[in-house]
């Protein structure tokens, strides 16, 4: 039995490799993680962007670089042209012995005041300030962008496994190989397990690999494993139920598009809504998965919490499975 299950898995990987599909799916999440990693380092250092022309001296540029990202231009026109482009960047030039700041007008509110403050301070550096400023921190190096981005990616990847199954099944249907399986000595359960295995292996490989790449430090990967398995379970069931009931790729793709709504909705809801609105998200397994993943990344997760959240996810999965099992069975025939 086991050998048959693995043969089905092997065949899926082989045919996927031939189509490059599996290759894309394996590599792409890591590219996403890499981009997130790049972003968290560069976004974190952004305060104000400023374009200066040749009237601004070397000293001033050096001073500005302590506070802002500076681009230099050799003429006023080029600098003004730069300011007028779509992104947020201010212009700075000397005029009549004073400074002139150019803005486009639609920049993020308040940023021009920051630049005004930085430039003004340059001229008033010698003034003795009547107060002392001390800055310290509580040694928390993880930015919210990386924290939430990591959880979001981990859950997305757990859902992806189910999608691979969906695509695989529709391919079987269009190529009429599903009917062939029905007359082969392979049992129904073996076929389902063989197909489903991919939906678990990929997410585990992805979420653990991605979290390692993002380097969250000493987090509990066994907890990640348990959470990933539980969310992959519901994705596999959704993938199966859509995959076997649709022999039309169009419907498959649009269903895939629809699944992103509850996934993204639950995660963004959990991040942005205040706690009193959270009960509205309790129905969503993706909400509970996010709660677990977030706690794991923050190193605040306890086994009790992980087991409870995973239990809720599996409970919801069970209800969904009960509702869909007939459909899946009928579709496989």
């Amino acid at each position, binding site marked *: 039995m086991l050998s048959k299950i693995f043969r089905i898995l092997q065949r899926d990987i082989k045919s996927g490799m031939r189509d490059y599909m599996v290759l894309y799916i394996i590599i*792409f999440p890591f590219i996403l993680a890499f981009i997130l990693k790049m972003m968290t380092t560069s976004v974190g250092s*952004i305060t104000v962007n400023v374009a200066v022309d040749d009237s601004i001296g070397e000293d001033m540029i050096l001073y500005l670089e302590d506070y802002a990202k500076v681009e230099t231009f050799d003429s006023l026109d080029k600098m003004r042209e730069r300011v007028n482009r779509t992104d*947020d960047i201010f212009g700075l030039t000397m005029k009549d012995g004073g400074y002139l700041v*150019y803005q486009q007008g639609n920049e993020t509110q308040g940023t021009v005041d920051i630049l005004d403050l930085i430039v003004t301070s340059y*001229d008033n550096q010698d003034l003795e300030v009547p107060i002392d*400023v001390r*800055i310290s921190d509580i040694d928390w*190096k993880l930015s919210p962008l990386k924290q939430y981005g990591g959880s979001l990616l981990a859950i997305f990847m757990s859902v992806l496994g189910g999608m691979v199954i969906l695509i695989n099944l529709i391919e079987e249907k269009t190529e009429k190989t599903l009917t062939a399986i029905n007359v082969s000595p392979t049992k129904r359960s073996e076929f389902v397990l063989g197909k489903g295995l991919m939906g678990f292996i990929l997410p585990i490989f992805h979420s653990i690999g991605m979290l390692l790449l993002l380097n969250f430090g000493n987090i509990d990967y066994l907890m990640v494993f348990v959470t990933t398995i539980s969310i992959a379970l519901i994705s596999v069931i959704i993938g199966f139920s859509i995959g076997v009931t649709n022999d039309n790729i169009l419907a498959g*793709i*649009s269903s895939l598009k629809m699944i992103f709504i509850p996934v993204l909705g639950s995660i963004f809801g959990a991040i942005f809504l205040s706690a009193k609105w959270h009960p509205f998200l309790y129905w969503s397994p993706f909400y509970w998965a996010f709660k677990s993943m977030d706690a794991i990344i923050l190193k605040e997760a306890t086994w009790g919490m992980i087991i409870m959240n995973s239990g809720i996810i599996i409970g919801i999965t069970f209800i969904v499975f009960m509702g869909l099992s007939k459909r899946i069975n009928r579709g496989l025939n």
Partner: protein
Amino acid sequence: MHLLTSFLKDLKVSFKTFYIYIEIIMALIIVLVLLFVIPENFTSSAKAFIYLDPALLETELGEELTSNTLDEIVLVDNKEDIPRLMEEDRNSVGGAILLENGKMVYDLTLQGYESERFRNVIEKALTVDMVRQLPDYESKVSIETLGESSERLSDRINMLPVFLVINSAFMGLFIIAAYIFMDKDEGTIKAFAVTPSRVWEYLLSKLGIILVTGLMTGLLTAVLVAGFNVHYVHLIILLIASNVFGSAVGLFIASFYDNIIKAMGALYITIITFAFATISYYMPSFTPLVIRILPSYPMLFAFREVFLEKPDLGYVYTYTALFFILAVVFFILANERFKKTLTA
């Protein structure tokens, strides 16, 4: 004539499949989310937990702080509570305003992930009010606005371009390949090969279906969320150009593959890559070159313009024209390739 017949037939068929209805339902869900879940304006400013030295309560600053009604400023009675409160909200900052040896001290506590530049700016910002009151202080900075309009959209309307680009303009990227390979699998293309119609007519008719669906969902979202505050003529023209562009790119990519499963990997990567422009749309200070060269980047800003009271029509139509030209180029290239492979 062939084109029209073929288009009308395709349109009739597509209304019979439930795909088009899924797109409409999806657009309605987006509308519901925008209207009922997303507040019209949401501030994302960070909370500050402030402790004030009792000796400073009677000062102007003390009175200002104790009478503040801002949600962002939370006064705490105990300086020691600040780190604990900050741990609960990782977006927050903390600060204590103290009096030491007759001199005022701002003791600011940050989380730790903030950059050096951010720290420098904060340090300057804290002292600026004091410096301004010094007799020798002078400011030689003046500000000039270059743009004609400094109008800003509400946060809710500002989200519309994202949905319009991903859901309506790039609809073809998602789906046009599926339409074509489905016909291929079902043998419709073989039947088509023996008719006098040409491949480009067949492809154009598919493009037409996506355009109708894209316009329907795009306008539905715009009408229900923004009502009359849209320049509909410009919006429709821009939607047409961007939707046709999306479909032509979709066709071109699909022409390299002989079934949908193979094509989908490449198409999905294209969509997700294009979607990265959204990051810079929301964070205009973060615009690396890799994002600026994506077609979705100017597309997002062009869509934003049509919701402004005084849109920059030069910008909108420069890119509309560019998308049209690119659409034609990609369509011709896709047609050349499909001519060889589609009916083979």
